[in-house]
């Protein structure tokens, strides 16, 4: 395994989106870990210590806030880089997420996958092309 490869955890219940964005990150040379709800995401985050995490908000059983609140209780997790991405734009939700600690909030439908990858590369200090 390439030790320079960055690892991204994507927590998303919509499988078509999860697979699509994962493929894009893999295509751009990332290692991808997939999770389908908050608890699944939390287990994988604490086990894999990814360099970057995308978490959806509305998911069945355990949502994005369950993930965030529990992640921040962990020694490693309290500093993990997280972007919340969702398709519902609710100011209270954004405020709540920002209070817990997220790098940014993204409205999924506004973003091209290539721009999402570019943003992650910038945050991680990786070289970007184009």
């Amino acid at each position, binding site marked *: 395994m390439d030790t320079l490869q960055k690892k991204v955890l994507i927590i998303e219940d919509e499988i078509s*989106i999860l697979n*699509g964005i994962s493929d894009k990150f893999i295509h751009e040379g990332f290692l991808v870990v997939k999770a389908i709800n908050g608890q699944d995401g939390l287990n994988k985050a604490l086990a894999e210590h990814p360099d970057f995490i995308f978490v959806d908000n509305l998911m069945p059983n355990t949502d994005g806030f369950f993930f965030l609140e529990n992640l921040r209780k962990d020694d490693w997790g309290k500093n993990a880089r997280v972007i919340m991405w969702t*398709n519902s734009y609710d100011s209270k939700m954004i405020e709540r997420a920002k209070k817990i600690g997220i790098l940014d909030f993204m409205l999924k439908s506004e973003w091209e996958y290539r721009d999402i990858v570019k943003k992650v590369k910038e945050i991680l200090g990786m070289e970007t092309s184009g």
Partner: protein
Amino acid sequence: MNKKTVISTNDNTILKLKVLAKKKENVRGKLVVTAKKLATTAKEKEGVRSKLAVTAETLRLKAKQLAALAKEKESIKGKLEITAKKLAVTAKEIELANKELRSLDVAKDEFVSIASHQLRTPLTALKGYTGMLLDEDLGPINDKQREYLGEIKNVNDRMIDLIMALLNVSRVDLGVFVVEPELVNLEKVVESILKEFDMKIKDKKLKVDVSFGKDLPLISADLKITRMIFQNLLSNAVKYTPNEGSITLNVKKDDFNFIISVADTGYGIPENSQSKIFTKLFRADNARTKDPSGTGLGLYIIKATIEQTGGKIWFDSKENQGSTFYVSIPLNGMKKKEGTKRLELN
């Protein structure tokens, strides 16, 4: 008895009698006058009595009328009390109905939010996969494939825009959107919005002239709303100005307001459409022809937003000559507004 005396006596007597007779006559005359006067007085008295009788009758009638009025007043008062009670009940009913309407509004907004979330999810997936094919992540594509994928991408983006516009309409109609003023540099906002339109401006060979008043201070405004205003005005100017036309954007201030103006040499708004241009879903015929993809919601949304934050929007336009849209924002900035939802941007 002395004759002379007698005669004299008689004469005196006659004289006296004559005097007496005259006096009597005078007295009679006076009596007659007095009698006449008495008769007149009696007549006058009779007149007065009759007048008094009339007055008394009038007073009696008036008293009767007053009594009737008092009774009527009493009955009206009773009726008014009943009406007041009914009004109080109605007011309570209206208040309840309003409360119900408000909760229905909130429910409606929630429904629109959830529906838009559900609609966006498949569109997001479609956008992602189309983007990867266009990026040639799976290998090279030919020109025709690129054209078709481009079409899929465009209509998909239109759907996403439409959902966003409908969400914003719901939020401005219900007044649930948030206004969070911060210090904003308008020059920077314009610069970044113009970058978004850079490709279209170059494609159409439009001349864009941007100017700012001297020593323009930072404005206390909601950044998203400010961006939305410039985005909408510039997007319309770019869309509805033919190739090689020009767009002039100016920001200045007067004693009370920041004044933003965006002028173009475009198709203009036909006179018969000008009064409807800010109406929800309205599109002028020439705009519909030039750009069938518009939603007819942009100007409606920004007008409602600008007015709800204390500003104004207006325009001058002549068909085939161009339009100038003006927006004023008070110097002391946009009014802060609590709410549950943010307006969404492209």
